[in-house]
């Protein structure tokens, strides 16, 4: 019963982190960049939203401002990478590091700020999970619709091309530097938006809350792509798959806690899950290559 009762909460948490994972999907899958800024921007989003809500700003405006703050952090990472030639992964780590200080500044030097339904007007809270689920579902639907439309535009297609083949993209006159910056910025904006929702859902913003976020995001992405692999290829469906992946992740998480797994080991558990999912295709390719290469050998030529 306790397990069943915890499931709606797990789904809500899955949706919040699913939004975050969609941000990770944009960089990792579409832009082909491993961006570690997100650990910092999740927290930035939470801090900005919490502080603004506490000072009486409408929570929806606070959420949008949080997303904007994340997008700016993403631009910083993008510029470090593109303008200064720093490898993407290191650019992300540098921004993430700087954001730690920024986040503390936003919280006014405190490491933790509380938000309560009783004292503030917030969009969602774990004290009312059915409404929280409704709010999150709405956010997810709007986000997926907007992303679907955006990546179908000329500029969106240019970003996808940049991730798929930068050499070809430049030969087709695409400004790949600009595409990378916009892509990383968009991703971090979405992650910060998730952070803003998470702060309201859990009732606080904490300077430590983003740690390991990228691993959870990746877990959702890899589980999600496994879930939709056999379905028709469609961008909106892939994004929905990422949401589903995050929900599955948190459902499993609840079960693992329920069976009495030491919660101190959960982060290690997450890392192992991601490593297995990311490593499996490589090993599969390595050990079953004979079969596939024989096939492509025959089918070669025009």
């Amino acid at each position: 019963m306790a397990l069943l009762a915890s499931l709606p909460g797990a789904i809500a948490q899955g949706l919040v982190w699913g939004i975050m994972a969609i941000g990770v999907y944009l960089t990792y899958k579409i832009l082909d960049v491993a961006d570690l800024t997100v650990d910092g921007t999740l927290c930035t989003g939470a801090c900005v939203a919490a502080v603004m809500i506490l000072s009486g700003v409408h929570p929806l405006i606070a959420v949008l401002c949080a997303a904007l703050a994340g997008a700016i952090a993403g631009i910083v990472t993008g510029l470090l990478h593109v303008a200064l030639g720093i490898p993407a992964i290191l650019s992300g780590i540098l921004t993430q590091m700087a954001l730690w200080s920024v986040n503390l500044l936003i919280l006014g030097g405190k490491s933790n700020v509380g938000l309560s339904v009783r004292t503030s007007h917030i969009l969602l809270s774990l004290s009312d999970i059915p409404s929280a689920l409704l709010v999150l579902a709405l956010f997810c639907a709007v986000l997926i619709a907007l992303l679907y439309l955006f990546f179908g535009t000329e500029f969106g297609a240019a970003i996808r091309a940049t991730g798929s083949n930068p050499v070809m993209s430049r030969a087709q006159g695409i400004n790949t530097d600009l595409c990378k910056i916009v892509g990383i910025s968009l991703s971090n904006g979405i992650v910060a938006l998730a952070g803003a929702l998470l702060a309201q859902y859990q009732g606080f913003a904490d300077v430590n809350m983003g740690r390991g976020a990228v691993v959870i995001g990746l877990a959702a992405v890899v589980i999600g792509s496994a879930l939709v692999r056999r379905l028709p290829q469609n961008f909106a469906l892939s994004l929905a798959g990422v949401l589903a992946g995050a929900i599955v992740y948190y459902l499993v998480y609840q079960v693992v806690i329920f069976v009495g797994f030491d919660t101190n080991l959960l982060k290690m558990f997450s890392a192992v899950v991601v490593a297995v999912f990311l490593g499996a295709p490589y090993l599969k390719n390595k050990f079953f290559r004979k079969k596939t290469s024989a096939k492509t050998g025959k089918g070669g030529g025009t």
Partner: protein
Amino acid sequence: MMLELQHLTKIFNAGTVDEKIALNDLCLTVAEGEFVTVIGGNGAGKSTMQNAICGSFRPDSGRILLDGEDITALPEHKRAKYLGRVYQDPMTGTAAGMQIEENLALAARRGKPRTLRPGIRREEREEYRKLLAELGLGLETRLSAKVGTLSGGQRQALTLLMATLEKPKLLLLDEHTAALDPKTAAKVMQITEKIVREHRLTTLMITHNMRDAIRYGDRLIMLHEGKVILDIRGEEKNRLTVPDLLALFTKASGDEFVSDRAVLS
């Protein structure tokens, strides 16, 4: 003149033991509508010349003029609107993770601002279907297939179509049939010839295949150590044979022709 290369010099790894003079005061002018084949041994500077035109790097000295405009300092993606490119590796010219029609739509917008308008319109699809049908490779029924599922020859033919969808001022072909089997290579060469003649494209085609270099194009140039050492056109080119070419090379360079692939083919 459509293309003028004026005293281009490029030295890689200058000042180190790996120093390599890739372009050595290279001069070349190509008239509008001219189809030039480019041959030369390994490291003669053929690809370096094309990469300089495309803007992969800045030459150490010299100027590049395209249709009268100095493009020497123009960023790669900005000069792309004037240039069509097909590479040796079939993987390079197309985005594998995107659909055939999406690749074509990207190419159709070369040199135009990328806005928030739809990435592909319905009328375009019909146009692409027609153009793909002309290739004769059965791609016209597979518009929404991922390019990654195509064979090397199909990808090269598609890249050619993409390079010429917006008529380029200059078409650059860098051994674009070298990675294909002979039958496919012949087919892609035939498509190349058709497209170049139809649109009267100014073309630079690098090839390691001497017979192709003689058979196709209006003019043949040979590079050696970053310089043009042979420049043959018109009647003289039509009478040329592979042994002639080898003899001319030895005479002009005082060197044996060093290219394992060229000798074998």
